[in-house]
């Protein structure tokens, strides 16, 4: 009989792409095989009936005891003689998921001979769906490649030789954020159910859930771009690829810019002018997305159910951030919470996109390494972060007057500010004790919200209600036609 190889196992299984963590604990703390109630029942019941048969001279009692004695004897003989403990590995892959995306919680165990059932169970946690529900799976170990006779497979179980079994649960998070899965256990039962190993407590996996990608689908130009790298055409003439027209040559123009076809036209020849091609400058936009996470209105029912205001806000912000980063713009992100501001400097690229989404996933989370590192100040105040910011998108349910004051202040500092209203049309409100008080509170909220919306529009800020893809288009087109100085100044 081959014993499992001692020593630490690798922490990463490259073949499966699963980060696997070893079960903690010293070897002498590992669980042992323990007799089950099944074995006790078989032995005590069988031996009791046999003893009664002998004492009372009743062969019929012996017949009654035969099945229990046979089962007990077989289960006893199938007792595994090695422990599977050192080979147990578990992990969640991948550890960063989108809302609604499915990952796998995997436990891999090297089983000794005569094992029959291996199972994995996990406690249910809020906003995470487990499959099979409610979070447990049991399976037979795979049959080893060397063919065993049927009677041996039947009596001793498929793991008549040492075999590696993998048992997994599907994990689908239904809401963005930092999630910790519930307690997870692994257990093994020997052939005939006579002995049980475990349950062993596995390390609790952490899961980062990114907001579901909401396509902004906007094709409108970003207003007043500043940099010189991006995809947006500037209103000024400069280095670029899109033709703006022809103009007379001036000192400093590059020779390759000379348009010989236009310069050889009769009028140009008559005037003695050398003409060069003028192009629109290709510029990028610096976009600052400000997320109002001061409060959360309504209860979240996950991806499939009704959303809270913070759900809509975070998902809309994720859509906006992903849209602008995908077009090559530079995007900064600031999350305004009740007592802190998380700030991600303006940048572009795939790595920045991932960082922004991770930061959004940690909105309203008290812990989290990224949130701790990016916490800027105790005073929730938005800063533009240099001249490069040409557009500020404030994503807010319009309930915090402080945040809205910040928006108006930014607009007065010549920034183009667009406010995305993320208050859901329908929310699930918690009970406030009396049936009428909840409706009354909600009506007051709506009145306050409408009042704020009118005030913002009156202040000249672009305002759009977030209704999913395409919500930004109208406001972006409107804002791009206005000079920045007019925004917010009436």
């Amino acid at each position, binding site marked *: 009989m081959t014993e499992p190889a001692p020593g630490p196992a690798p922490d990463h299984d490259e073949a499966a792409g699963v980060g696997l963590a070893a079960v903690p604990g010293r070897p002498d703390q590992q669980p042992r095989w323990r007799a089950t109630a099944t074995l*006790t*029942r078989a032995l005590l019941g069988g031996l009791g*009936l046999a003893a009664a048969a002998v004492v009372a001279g009743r062969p019929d009692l012996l017949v*009654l005891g*035969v*099945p229990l004695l046979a089962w007990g004897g077989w289960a006893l003989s199938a007792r595994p003689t090695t422990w599977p403990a050192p080979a147990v590995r578990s992990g969640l892959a991948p550890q960063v998921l989108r809302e609604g995306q499915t990952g796998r919680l995997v436990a891999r165990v090297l089983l000794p001979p005569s094992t*029959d059932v291996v199972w994995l169970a996990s406690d249910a946690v809020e906003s995470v769906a487990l499959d099979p529900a*409610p979070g447990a799976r049991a399976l037979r170990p795979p049959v080893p490649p060397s063919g065993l006779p049927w009677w041996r497979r*039947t009596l001793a179980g498929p793991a008549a030789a040492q075999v590696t079994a993998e048992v997994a649960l599907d994990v689908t998070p239904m809401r963005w954020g930092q999630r910790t899965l519930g307690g997870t256990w692994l257990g093994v039962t020997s052939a005939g159910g006579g002995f049980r190993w475990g349950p062993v407590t596995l390390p609790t996996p952490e899961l980062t859930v990114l907001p579901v990608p909401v396509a902004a689908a906007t094709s409108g130009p970003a207003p007043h771009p500043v940099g010189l790298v991006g995809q947006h055409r500037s209103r000024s003439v400069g280095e670029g690829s899109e033709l703006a027209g022809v103009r007379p040559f001036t000192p400093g123009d590059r020779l390759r810019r000379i348009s010989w076809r236009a310069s050889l036209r009769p009028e140009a020849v008559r005037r003695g002018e050398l003409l060069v091609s003028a192009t629109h400058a290709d510029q990028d936009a610096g976009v600052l997305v400000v997320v109002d996470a001061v409060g959360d209105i309504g209860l979240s029912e996950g991806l499939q159910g009704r959303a809270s205001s913070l759900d809509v806000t975070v998902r809309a912000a994720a859509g906006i951030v992903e849209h602008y980063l995908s077009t090559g713009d530079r995007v900064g992100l600031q999350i305004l919470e009740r007592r802190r501001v998380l700030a991600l400097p303006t940048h572009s690229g795939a790595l920045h996109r991932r960082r922004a989404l991770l930061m959004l996933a940690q909105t309203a989370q008290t812990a989290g390494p990224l949130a701790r590192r990016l916490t800027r100040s105790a005073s929730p105040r938005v800063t533009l972060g240099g001249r490069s910011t040409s557009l500020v998108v404030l994503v807010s349910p319009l309930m915090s007057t402080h945040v809205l004051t910040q928006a108006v202040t930014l607009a007065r500092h010549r920034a183009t500010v667009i406010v995305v209203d993320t208050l859901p049309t329908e929310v699930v409100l918690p009970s406030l004790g009396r049936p009428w008080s909840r409706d009354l509170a909600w009506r007051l909220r709506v009145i306050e919200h409408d009042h704020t919306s009118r005030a913002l529009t009156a202040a000249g800020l672009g305002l759009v209600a977030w209704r999913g893809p395409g919500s930004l288009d109208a406001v972006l087109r409107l804002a791009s036609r206005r000079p920045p100085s007019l925004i917010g100044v009436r």
Partner: protein
Amino acid sequence: MSWRGLVVAVLDDLSVTGLTGRVLRLVVVLAAAAAWLAGDLAGASDSPVAFTVLLVAAAWCAVVPDSQAGVLVPLALGWQWVAHLDRTTSGWVLVAALALLVFHAAAALASCAPTAAPLGRDVLQATAGRTGVVALVTAAGWLAVRSSPLAGQPGHLGLTVTALLALTAATAAAAVALRRKSPSTFGR
């Protein structure tokens, strides 16, 4: 754990039991009742106390398959046959033994994994196969007893003592096997 906590935990467990688990629990109770019924059909007189013990133990075993309450089922059944039936080797003995086997196999299957874990077809098939093998052994035992010339004879003191000694030796061997220490995978 208090009684209230225990009841809540048991109800929680039952609420997440799948179809297979529910069927197995039903089989546990029905098989125990069938074993008792076979005794009744063999001519046993009424024994309400033993029947109540058997039924409660079977029900408890169905609700908590990993409990030791199931031991009472074969003992109550043995009491029915010892106290309320004369010596017999009729077919009802085999029926009762097979029903007891089904009760035990269903309880073993229900307790081999957490309540919430659905048992796969391969697990069910394997247990059914093993139960079949044990049923064959049981039938062979019944045939052997039935065809034995000693079956109808009264007990002999020497034979009884020998059988008791053999049983004690078997029990001691089982106890030693249970206490045998698992070899360490770390070479200790």
